[in-house]
């Protein structure tokens, strides 16, 4: 169910990436590197000790997701997911340069973890039961949700999914957001204008051919970021997509460590700093860290 939506997302984001690259607006807000612990100590034999000993870590992330994991012309992935990975690596005593980022698209996240080709996956990775059967999740560190994008000034007065009836709403055909609007909020095929990639929705909204675009707020935020004079977010997410950090099964110590690190990063301000430098450019309020779901199976 999710793969179609996310592969379309990948396409969209790839297009968005090209646009961002053209805009050339990056560079001036370089993120300060999170602190790297010099000599962290871990119990012998723990997963953390192994990684600290090796002095390097392989992280799966997205390369095409604006604000979360986007690899632009600089060649270095940038975004909130990337910063979270750096915070965790820092606590292991691993410097930014010793992190190897590997592109993890939606379809290969579980296989990468099962085959241990990556040590962890931070890639807008929604925690759900099916995935939890084959990998373990630390976190969540962010709560995404389906939201609505409208033209600047919200001329149609759209304030939630209920007010989309009788208006033209664009989304991707065969995606979970479109299905949610149809089954939960009673939109008909006349209300919904469906395409294959989200960039078409964005263009149609810019032209005034549709009244709204609806999918995960993370995707929509990227469009607001690129064209703040044209679009705005309604800002009331109506589904829950908790993003977790995927690790291979059977590494409970590592999972606990990540959850502790996330909690510490909130206290020392690095979580807020990471957010403000990335997704916070579009989402005003720094989110509170969601309660950890626990590492016991």
């Amino acid at each position, binding site marked *: *169910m999710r793969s179609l939506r996310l592969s379309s997302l990948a396409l969209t984001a790839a297009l968005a990436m090209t646009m961002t690259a053209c805009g050339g607006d990056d560079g001036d807000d370089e993120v300060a590197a999170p602190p790297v612990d010099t000599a962290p100590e871990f119990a012998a034999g723990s997963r953390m000790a192994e990684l600290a000993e090796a002095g390097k870590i392989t992280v799966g992330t997205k390369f095409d997701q604006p604000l979360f994991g986007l690899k632009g012309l600089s060649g270095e992935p940038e975004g909130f997911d990337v910063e979270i990975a750096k915070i965790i690596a820092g606590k292991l005593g691993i410097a930014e340069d010793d992190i190897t980022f590997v592109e993890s698209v939606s379809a290969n996240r579980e296989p990468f973890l099962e085959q241990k080709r990556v040590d962890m996956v931070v890639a807008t990775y929604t925690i759900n039961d099916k995935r939890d059967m084959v990998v373990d999740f630390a976190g969540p560190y962010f709560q995404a949700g389906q939201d609505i994008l409208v033209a600047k000034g919200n001329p149609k007065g759209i304030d939630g999914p209920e007010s989309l009836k009788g208006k033209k709403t664009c989304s991707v055909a065969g*995606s979970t957001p479109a299905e949610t609007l149809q089954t939960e909020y009673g939109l008909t095929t006349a209300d919904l204008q*469906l*395409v294959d990639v989200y960039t*078409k929705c964005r263009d149609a909204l810019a*032209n005034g051919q549709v009244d709204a675009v609806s999918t995960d707020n993370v995707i929509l935020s990227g469009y607001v970021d690129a064209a703040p004079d044209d679009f705005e977010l309604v800002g009331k997410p109506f589904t829950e997509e908790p993003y977790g950090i995927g690790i291979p099964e059977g590494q409970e110590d590592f999972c606990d460590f990540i959850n502790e690190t996330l909690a510490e990063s909130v206290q020392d301000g690095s979580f807020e700093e990471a957010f403000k430098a990335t997704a916070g450019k579009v989402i005003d309020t720094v989110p509170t860290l969601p309660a950890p779901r626990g590492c016991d199976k």
Partner: protein
Amino acid sequence: MDAVLDNLDVFAEGFTRTVTLTLLAAVGALLLGTLIAAMRVSPVPPLRWAGTAYVQLVRNTPLTVVFFLVVFGLPEVDVILSFFQFAVLALSLYTAAFVAEAVRSGILSVPSGQAEASRAVGMTFGQTLRLVVLPQAFANIVPPLASVFIALLKNTSIAGAFFIFEGTQSMARLINANGDQAIAILAAAALAYLGLSLISSALFGLLERRVTVSR
């Protein structure tokens, strides 16, 4: 199979739109295509050039690009139609190029003595084309036109990527909701297209026999 049988209404809505799109675009393409073919054989050079340019330009452009230009390009110059009208327009413009070539081949198949005789008895170019050449031309091009319109039927699936809820979009929706039965749903969609194509073939076969007899 349950996912298909329980959702026949979704399929029906989608494929009904596929048929409507095909019929409307076929009419549009036939009219525009005949006009362009007439331009290509006309005695006026600029008309001939324009007709040739249209065929070369449109026939060598992917349909997806034509859709992009129509759906997102026209609003830039303040031509705002409904998405359905845009889809019919894009499909008509595209298919017209192929119809034009089929019609032109039909026109060329009519012996030139026919046109010369018409001109000799005082008919204008328009009268010659309308009363003498085109009726014979159309009788000759039923098989290639059938191919063009069956291609059009399948091409309507591109509209599914441009805001139109047609056959393939209904399929995509059902697969998302029933990921475990994706193959059955794909097979059902393929069968629907096959059924519609076979019906068109049969109708064109009927037409072919009719016009051949009348000659």
